[in-house]
């Protein structure tokens, strides 16, 4: 751009430079976001709208009002699927919050030069997200194979079918989700803790706070918003459970039902029963939950600034 100094400045004579430029920039703005907006419409807005349309109509397109929602709501598989998810979410969120905070605080108050090492190892299983992690844990939970068989024998579990009983599944899935996801959250919490200023911690220490008080009265309140963020995201993701119950159902040869979670039920309705309207109604139920949670975080928490 130094080169331009010696060159004649382009002279605009035809239109007022300010307005012309601003209009040009606006047009350019639309062009820049054009492709993304097209993708957003085609693979975000349109499928949502179409699912909503299907959920309010009958096969053939006749208006159905809320009939699809009522019918799926009265389906004998509907409530159990949502109950499963509710129990899973309860277990998973409690485990997540308690253990992630515990490990993040341990890391933060620990032997400093080892922190990157431990943090990396805790984070590594995230690479196995999805079906790989479920398979690994099917191995891990199969008593004859498991390095944890001593733990399983404490609960009198001696075979895989005993481990994956329907009542156990919320716990099994919480373990899998924790194994793959906790490391990432520990990294985030650790980052938030490192962001607390030295002065705050030092002055608390000078005032005589011990490590315990430091963690609970100083550090935790300062990273509270991150905990809220984690819980909201984990909640939204948790409602979507699909790959875990699907694989466990396949591996247990039908002992675990194919509609354990709401997403599975919707999938089953669409694929096996060709009930697209019912499937759409359930996916709209789930979408509404996720949309509300996401909107809450974006517009109410001040977590994101939209200037």
């Amino acid at each position, binding site marked *: *751009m130094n080169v*331009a100094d010696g060159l004649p400045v382009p002279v605009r004579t035809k239109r007022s430079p300010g307005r012309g430029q601003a209009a040009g920039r606006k047009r350019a*703005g639309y062009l820049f976001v054009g492709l*993304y907006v097209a993708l957003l419409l085609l693979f975000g807005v349109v499928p949502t709208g179409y699912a909503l349309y299907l959920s309010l109509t009958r096969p053939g397109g006749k208006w159905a009002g809320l009939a699809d929602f009522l019918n799926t709501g009265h389906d004998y598989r509907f409530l159990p699927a949502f109950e499963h998810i509710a129990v899973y979410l309860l277990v998973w969120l409690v485990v997540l919050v308690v253990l992630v905070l515990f490990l993040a605080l*341990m890391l933060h108050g620990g032997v400093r030069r080892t922190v990157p090492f431990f943090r990396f190892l805790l984070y590594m299983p995230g690479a196995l997200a999805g079906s790989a992690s479920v398979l690994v844990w099917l*191995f891990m939970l199969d008593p004859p194979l498991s390095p944890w068989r001593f733990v399983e024998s404490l609960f009198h579990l001696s075979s895989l079918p005993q481990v994956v009983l329907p009542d156990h599944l919320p716990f099994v899935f919480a373990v899998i989700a924790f194994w793959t996801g906790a490391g990432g959250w520990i990294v985030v919490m650790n980052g938030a803790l490192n962001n607390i200023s030295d002065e705050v911690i030092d002055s608390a220490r000078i005032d005589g706070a011990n490590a315990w008080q430091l963690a609970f009265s100083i550090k935790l309140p300062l990273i509270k918003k991150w905990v809220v963020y984690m819980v909201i995201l984990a909640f939204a993701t948790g409602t979507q459970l699909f790959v875990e119950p*699907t*694989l466990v159902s396949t591996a247990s040869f039908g002992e675990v039902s194919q509609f354990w979670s709401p997403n599975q039920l919707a999938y089953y309705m669409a694929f096996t029963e060709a009930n*697209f309207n019912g499937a759409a109604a359930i996916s709209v139920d789930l979408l509404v939950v996720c949309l509300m949670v996401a909107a809450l975080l*974006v517009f109410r928490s001040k977590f994101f600034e939209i200037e």
Partner: protein
Amino acid sequence: MTTSPIGRATAQPVVGPRAARRVSGTGRAHRPGGAWRIGTRTAWYVVMIAATAFFVVPLIWLLIAPTKTDHQLVYEGPMAFGSFHTFVRTWDQIYAFQGHELLTWLANSAMYSVGGLALALLSAVVAGYGLALTEFIGRKVLLSITLVVMIMPASALVLPLFLEMNLVHLLGSAWSVILPFGFFPFGVYLCYIFFSSTIPKELLAAARVDGASEWDVFWRIALPLARPVVALVGLFAFVANWTNFFLPYVMFYSDRQYPLPVGLEYLVSSTSAFNPVAGAHSPVLRPELAMATLVAVAPVFLVFLFAQRALVQGMLAGATKE
């Protein structure tokens, strides 16, 4: 305009120096004086090693499993190493499964992930720039929608997408996963943060005064500075696409079209590896299944190993705007 602002901007990490300090974990001194009682330190190590064992032991088990036969898996110690010879045999077995189907799945995974990644980069980088540094009607609305969709789990859209693809008869086509993979609001948000926090508006204004068109400003000035965020968005898109199970699971009918994560499920369903009685003579048993899992996770594992720092920065950037 000298090179100094450019140099400064490229040297900056994606989310600013504070995040870099947080990431490196060296932001502050932990203990004044460092006199730590040996008892406390030992207790700390015991807890940390126990916790780490929970995360790492399954990974080590997975690496060892293919070195053993199915029989050895059950009757030898879970963490005992088998033999290299068995490892090779296990590989041969899984490699031969249904005419090298594992390779087909690998190629499919690569095609879907990279195709989706390319589209995501193409759309996200320019859109992030447009949202950060240009003005247009609806900009704030678009930003808000992007944030909401970014927070929503991608799986919430899978069944609606399936219904849509069914309507337009794209089910079973590679496009049915590549196109949705290209819609990557998190990438747009990362680019938006990068462009709005690291590229000085004056730099762009100066270029405009010099007569550069809007596209020139983006292409010649902003984009070369954005290399770190392009790499970051690429990494995140790749990991998300590669590990995605639900979307390809609903879109494809034929196992020849599956990507690896869905292929793993197919292996479980078609080989009775978890049903030792029925599967006693199947060529694919648990060691082969473990081997296939290793193949499926290897690329993401490598990304994690070599790009750990960048990924961590991105995770922090996902929630902070500095």
